[in-house]
């Protein structure tokens, strides 16, 4: 028999012959097959997700702790001849950024929108609890004539 809409070219896929079994229609078979494919896809996606999550994510957490990071703002920092360091923490950690600088200006922790003034030769600290996960850039916005702008460090806070 011919399915409605099935092209009659030589290359068409073979269609089962249901002529002797009028109670089973190819449209119904196709509908059942599509439903089965959709359902099994959803089951596989959910199963994969649960399996992957609990296989890989569990056991990576650490207890909340205090982390102190020291940054010395030198000429090398301003001219970018060395990559800015990456400080790693976890959500909930107590973070202290201790900055000593040759320059004056503002310390900006972008993303967390924390701003602290800094003076030459003085150690300035930024203290906070890492409530948000993410990647946050610590920049020096100089108040000199050149409006010095330098990346001092990157703080990566991993979620728990």
């Amino acid at each position: 028999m011919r399915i409605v809409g099935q092209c009659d070219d030589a290359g068409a896929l073979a269609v089962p012959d249901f002529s002797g079994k009028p109670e089973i229609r190819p449209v119904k078979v196709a509908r059942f097959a599509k439903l089965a494919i959709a359902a099994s896809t959803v089951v596989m996606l959910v199963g994969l997700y649960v399996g992957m999550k609990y296989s890989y994510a569990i056991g990576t957490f650490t207890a909340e702790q205090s982390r102190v990071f020291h940054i010395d703002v030198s000429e090398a920092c301003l001219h970018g001849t060395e990559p800015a360091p990456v400080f790693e923490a976890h959500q909930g950690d107590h973070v202290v950024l201790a900055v000593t600088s040759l320059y004056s200006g503002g310390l900006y922790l972008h993303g967390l929108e924390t701003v602290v003034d800094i003076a030459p030769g003085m150690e300035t600290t930024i203290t906070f609890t890492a409530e948000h996960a993410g990647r946050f850039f610590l920049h020096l916005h100089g108040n000199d004539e050149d409006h010095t702008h330098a990346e001092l460090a990157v703080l990566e806070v991993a979620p728990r």
Partner: protein
Amino acid sequence: MQYRTVLESFATPAMKYRAVFFLVLTCLLPDAAQAHSFEVPYILPIPLWIYMYACMAMLVISFAAIGYYSATPVTVTSPAPSSGGTGVQDYSGAIGRSVILVLRIGAVGLLFLTIAAGFIGTKDPMTNINMTLFWVVFLLGFAYLTAIVGDVFAIINPWDTMLDICETCGLDFSKARVIYPRALGYLPALCCYIALIWIELFTEQSPFVLSVALVAYSVIVFIGAWLFGRETWLRYGEFFGVFFRLIGAMAPVAYIRTPGPGEWHSRSRLPFSGIVDDPKEHLSLVLFVLFMLSSTIYDGLHDTQVWLDIYWKHLLQLIEPMWGSVGPKDRSALIIFWHTVYQRSGLILLLALYVGVYLSVIAVAKWIAKIDASVGSLAQRFSYSLIPIAFVYNITHYFTFLVAQIRVLPWLVSDPFGFGWNLLHLSRAPQDFGLLDMGFIWHMQVALILIGHLVSVCVAHMISLRVFHTRRQAILTQVPMLVLMMMYTSVGLWILSLHLSQRLNEAGG
């Protein structure tokens, strides 16, 4: 950067000529500054388990799509007769002239506000409204809205409105003074697109630079419309029109211009039917679609550790011996110079790579299904199937930026030029709006990419059923197309999993 120092450091005249060539290449626009403009991304790369899950889910979805379509007795249909009119479910009627008038005036007003704010407002991109209006509200928010409500931009295009006004004043843009070369196709729009991404990635974005760019673009539109005729230029050369038309093709609404002046009708249609039905137009539109994909990919890639390590750990070792003996200062200048060349050429090379891969896959599809049509013709017909992948990757890449910036919009509206006004009498803007949960961001990124992949696979299949004479050809062509979709989706997922580099200072963006 001290280009003079760089030039002087080249030992021979030949080297200097080469250097001049690259200077022309790289100095067209100013070097990126160390300072950020107003976007500071805070997204962490997706963790390994989500990345692995996403890859496996992509395979499952791909094979499920094949199985689903194999189980569906479908018709091999004729190509669609026209754009926007097929797949139509319902005729929704005319759009009121007053509504159109208000929208068009509003669009022109916003364009003027954007330009004016850059010239007279504060230089601070955070407190000048023009950066947020253009980069966030228009290029991101309006683009995402277009995928839902259709190509509204075709109705409210401010450059179209300004041409209208000029024609009312006696200037004639309706006739072509020079015949538009057919071979050009959408290349002018593509060039403007590349220029826009170039500005986004490689220049120090500021309100002033943006306003200058918008004025320059407006001049280009007027010159193009004057030379080639308004209709021609708005169709082929006006970048924003082409960009929003492609995105709007996914929407469940189409807008049809009727012969009367300023009359538009809206028609509802099946979602994504626009990208299935739109007939092939020009090979340059394939480049445009592929650049939609590759430019967003490159935006994600160009400051990752992997990409920068290629230069710092490998290429630099190859090119450094060619410099001879240079002082530390010159060496530093050369390193940065060649890094700039590396970064900027990467944008074009990635487009070339994407085009090469796409055409190769189309050629394979043509070969295994024994199709008579040319590779170029098939490439044009299937290029729209990549739009969903490009679109969702754009969302995954920028939506946190959109969310972050859109929240400060009321305060920017209240003080558009950064003069300290408070026109809306708002309370002081909060310093901390809160950040989106990283887990939510990761899951949303992966879910969107998988949805985009599924839609693209389905669209490619539906296009093949319209294009080919036999179902066998339609099925066979889908095997290489599916591999192509999986490759593009995998690259998108991979880039989401990459760590950003700490060499941003050296990289210059």
